[in-house]
Structure formats: structure tokens, C-alpha cells
């Protein structure tokens, strides 16, 4: 019994060590509450930065949103036409509504082609380098939400 407890403890502390090293380990998602079709409160109470959000949506290894959506951004000739255009999205949707769509659009439309950006469960054959991690971190989700909230033109 004692040995079992000790084994558990060392397993937990070694996981914590790896995390402290900044290695990729399974990341616990922050809890969030859905009200209607929105997540009104920011993840972890974090505040987003629109400038950073814009970089994230452009970054092919992060949001890579232009693969599917058009954004009101010049100098980007090849933009996708899979999802709806993002110009004026803040007039159609509240911040909380945008947040839920970023976290997991399939909660609104189970058949959606839009990837879940803050989810780790129920995914099959995830590449090892992405395993156990959400596509975007809580801070990155908030940054993207902050950027989309500026698209009210």
C-alpha cells in the first residue's frame, strides 16, 4: 500500500517536472461554461490581445484560418472559401458566441468542417507531435477572439 502510494507520487512529480521543463505533455484544458450558444467568460479569466490574435490566425502552424476563411487582410492573395467570410463577424456574433465557435464548433453543428481549436478528447489518430494538446492554447484562443471582435466593418 505504502509502495503503491510512493509510486503514484513519483509518477505525478515526474509529470510535473516535465511540464516545468516546458516539454509537450498532455495539457489540462481550463474549464468553461456554455450558456446558450456562447461561452461568455474568457478562458481562465485571461485577456486577449488582438494584434497577437491576428498573427495566430495567419500562422500556418497555429490557426491557419485563411486556409478556409477569407479575412479583410490585404497582401494575402490565396484565401480559402470553405467557411463564411470573417469580415463583419463581430456584427453577427458576440464575443461569447465567437469563443464557443473557436473552442468547438461541433457543439453547434455536429457535422461542421471547422476544427475544434480547444479540445483534446474524442479525436482519432492525432499526430504524435499534437497528441494531448489543443490546437490553440487558452491564451491563443483569447487572442483570436479579441482579434475577431475587431472585425465589425
Amino acid at each position, binding site marked *: 500500500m505504502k509502495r503503491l502510494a510512493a509510486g503514484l507520487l513519483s509518477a505525478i512529480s515526474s509529470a510535473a517536472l516535465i511540464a516545468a521543463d516546458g516539454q509537450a505533455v498532455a495539457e489540462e484544458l481550463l474549464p468553461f461554461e456554455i450558456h446558450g450558444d456562447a461561452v461568455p467568460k474568457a478562458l481562465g479569466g485571461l485577456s486577449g490581445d488582438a494584434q497577437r490574435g491576428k498573427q495566430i490566425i495567419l500562422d500556418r502552424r497555429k490557426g491557419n484560418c485563411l486556409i478556409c476563411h477569407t479575412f479583410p487582410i490585404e497582401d494575402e492573395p490565396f484565401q480559402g472559401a470553405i467557411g463564411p467570410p470573417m469580415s463583419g463577424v463581430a456584427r453577427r456574433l458576440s464575443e461569447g458566441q465567437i469563443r464557443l465557435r473557436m473552442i468547438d464548433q461541433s457543439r453547434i453543428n455536429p457535422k461542421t468542417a471547422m*476544427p475544434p481549436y480547444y479540445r483534446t478528447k474524442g*479525436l*482519432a489518430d*492525432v*499526430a504524435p507531435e499534437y497528441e494531448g494538446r489543443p*490546437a490553440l492554447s487558452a491564451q491563443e484562443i483569447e487572442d483570436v477572439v479579441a482579434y475577431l471582435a475587431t472585425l465589425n466593418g
Partner: protein
Amino acid sequence: MSVAMKQTVSGRASHSALAAFFCVAAVVAAGPASAGGEPLPSGTSFLTQSLQAQQSDEATNPGMLWISEGALIWQTPDGASGASCATCHGDAGTSMKGVAASYPKVYGKTGELLNLEKRINLCRTSQQNAEPYAYESDPLLALTAFIARQSLGQPINVQIDDASRAFYERGKAMFYRRQGQLNLSCAQCHEALAGKQLRGDTISYGVGNGYPAYRLEWQTLGSLHRRLRSCSYGVRARRFEFGSPEYLSLELFLAVRAQGVPVETPAIRR
């Protein structure tokens, strides 16, 4: 240039492979074996006019380099047997006509699913007593493309039978299952979204009739499994090995689904 190459994208966006599939089944069940569902549009029909022209002209298609190389290998003795492919099979234009259009296929003796690459390597090890070629090596790509070229314009004709059914079902399940961190299935892109813009690419129906194909992004000829690895990577999913059972099963499913589409190897792709 074949008719398929000239097909345009317009009016095709709602074409559902599954619907086409069931149509075929329904027609066959009703009696007349001659009428089939309309084959899926080839990936070629989503290329620009100038790339289509480049592909169909042997003088400008960069993939033709591998065809010449393959023709040379076909006649060159190799391995302890001292035999070449031609020693056993003679003129490829006759003996290999239509062969690629019937692959992948289950090998009767072992029950193994073989695509053209695997079939070539089986001949090397069991007939020529030579080393198998590495997957994606130039000689294997060249021979595969050369043999596929002998089926140019022939409709893909791969049937499901008792021996292949389990492989087919596995491939089909993989095609319709969401996968990867981005949680997308092959079908979401290659059925529902075919014809739409994914960044600079127009998504096609995911037909393998042009492989090995010369992809501009690769600047070289590549196998169907290399293309499938790109698709897996795109959705941040696990990439299976070249020649893996997973991609072989998918290749079989894709071929059955592409019934009637003419072989176009070596196709040009973006």
C-alpha cells in the same frame, strides 16, 4: 487529350461519391449491366487549362522522364536470376495493358493486398531474385509509372470480392472517419467540399487515377501514398508508413470508388 481531362468543374460541386455508388448498385440490381453511374471527375479537371495541356503533351509532361527510365529498367536484367521484366512479360504495351487499372488486388497465394508497387517488388524478390526497391525510390516510381502508363485512358476497374472485402471495409471506414487534431475526415474534404478553395488549392474528389504523379510542390514524381501522407499531415493526423496496411486499404477503397475513371499517369498536380 481525353474527354475526362476536358471536364469542367462547374455544376459538379454537389456530386456525391456515395450517391454515385448507390446508383451503380441500384442499376445493376435492376438488371441492365451496361448502364453505370457517372464516374467521378478526375483531379485533372480541377487543374488550369495550361496545366491540363502540359499534362497531356508527352513532350512537356515532366513525369515522362520517369516513364523513359521505367522502360529502360523493364528491359534490364537484374538479380541472381539474370532476368529482366521483359524476359517474362515481353512487350509491356501488350502484357501490361489494363493491369494498373485493376490494382490494388489481393494476391491469391498469401491473401495479401498488393498495390502496383508491392506487386513489382514481389516479382523482384520471387522471380528475379533481386532486392525489393525501397518505397518512393526513383526506380520503383519509374517502373510503377511505366506500367501504369500502359493503361493510359483505360477505366479503373477494381471489384470487391470475398478476398478483398475486409480490406475494402477498412479503407472505407478510414475514409469516413474524422481524424487528426483538426478532426476532419477524407470525405468531408473530398465529397462535401470538392470544388471549393482550400487556400490556393481547389479540392478534388480524391481520385488516385494519376499516380505516380508529378507534383509541382514536390518538384518530382511521387506515389499515391506520398499524397495520402500529405493529406494526413494537413489535418495533423498520424502519417502511416509508405505501403502500410492502412494506406493500402484506403487505396483499394479509393480505386473502387473511382470505378470508370480513366488512368492518367503520370498526372501533373499542384
